[in-house]
């Protein structure tokens, strides 16, 4: 057995790659009426991957406390190779991801694809839309510039009017004064750890449901 083949066999015994690739090949055929509009969901996923890549790069240098947050962004933009470009990409990528998720949702509504038996897929999609919004909100504060500060303060003021949990949410957003480093680190943990985990779980479920139920033909 040639060396390359032996290595493939060795790897496959441990990872099961051959059966995984076979399962992809065995995926039911995609109907002929599936056109570019059905790619929007997949491209939204791509946008999310781009956000993950650019976010990981930024997170390597970002410091989540108000004394250093703004300076770390300034450092990223001014000193790192492609730093300003990647920060711009992260910001524009967020806009793109939100736009694509909305367009995907509109396509689903237009084709009535939320109907039984796809209710759970629809609900997981709504969850992903919410998470996309939460990513944007939690990302606002991180640069710790004027825009970040005042938008977060405005949000905290508005949320004070909620009939339930208003104090807890406002406390989470603003801390006691918004001038301690607690809100910045909270937002960073939310943005870089909690939301990505929740998104990964929901995405897995969403894709599993698409794979199980297929796509619905429009009328």
């Amino acid at each position, binding site marked *: 057995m040639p060396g390359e083949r032996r290595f493939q066999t060795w790897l496959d015994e441990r990872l099961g790659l051959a059966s995984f690739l076979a399962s*992809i090949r065995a995926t*039911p*055929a*995609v*109907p*002929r009426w*599936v056109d*570019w509009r059905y*790619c929007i969901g*997949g*491209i939204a996923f*791509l*946008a999310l991957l*781009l956000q993950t890549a650019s976010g990981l790069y930024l997170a390597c240098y970002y410091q989540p406390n108000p004394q250093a947050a703004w300076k770390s*962004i*300034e450092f990223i933009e001014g000193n790192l190779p492609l730093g*300003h*470009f*990647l920060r*711009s*990409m992260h*910001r*524009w*990528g*967020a*806009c*793109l991801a*939100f736009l694509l998720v*909305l367009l995907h949702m509109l396509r689903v*509504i237009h*084709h*009535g694809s*939320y*109907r039984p038996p796809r*209710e759970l897929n*629809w*609900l997981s999609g*709504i969850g992903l839309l919410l998470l996309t*919004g939460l990513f*944007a909100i939690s990302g*606002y504060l991180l640069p*710790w*510039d*004027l*825009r*970040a*500060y*005042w*938008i977060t303060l405005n949000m905290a003021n*508005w949320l004070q*009017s*909620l*009939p339930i949990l208003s104090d807890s949410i406002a406390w989470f957003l603003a801390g006691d004064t918004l*001038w301690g480093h607690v809100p910045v680190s909270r937002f960073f943990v939310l943005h870089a750890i909690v939301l990505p985990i929740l998104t990964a779980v929901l995405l897995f479920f969403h894709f599993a449901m698409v794979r199980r*139920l*297929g796509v*619905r*033909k*429009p*009328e």
Partner: protein
Amino acid sequence: MTTADKTSGNGHSGHPFYPDHLLVEGIVAVIVLLAILLVSQVWQVPLEEMASPSDTSYVPRPEWYFLFYFQLLKYFHGPLIVVGTFVLPLLLFAALVLLPFLDRKPARGVLQRPRSLTAGVLAIAAMILLTVVAYQEDDSMKLPPVTDQQVAAGKDIFYRFCILCHKMDGQGGFMAPDLTHIGSRSGRTYMERVIINPKIVSPSSIMSIVPLSDAERHEVSAYLSRKK
């Protein structure tokens, strides 16, 4: 049987997912990727000044996709603000969650779902309208440069209306804040917003809306911006 003859789970003939459909997705993905790379290179995002609680003149603007909500909240004041922050978002969220359970007719064509179609179109139209209004308000806040003539006219207006409540250089009323050094504390955009609707900035404000034209408002803010 060729791969193209395979049938889907729905019983329709079609293309294999791999590699045919993945190729289509890949082409669209490359186009979108190139677009985002180009946009990121051409329109690099600026880092604004470092956060400062003392800069009360700053008027924050969210991204375009939250702008409609930001604008919507401007129409609710006092006890009604809960409608904007809680009731309307909850209704929208509930409508989306319940959609598959409420809309159960077998017909799926858009025109065969008049209620869903009407509700969806109205919601989208309202979001677009609010976004457009928000952008228009932003444009209206692009102020002309301050001239001495404007400052003189603004002083005249200030001493006719505002001095009744506000104090300036030791003169005037005592019901509202002293504006003698307002130009060193607040920017013109902020002043203009307060003049248009004082409650936007502070819901508890008792200041009444002064009926000024756009030009008169620019003159007042020009005068106040010189009071440093």
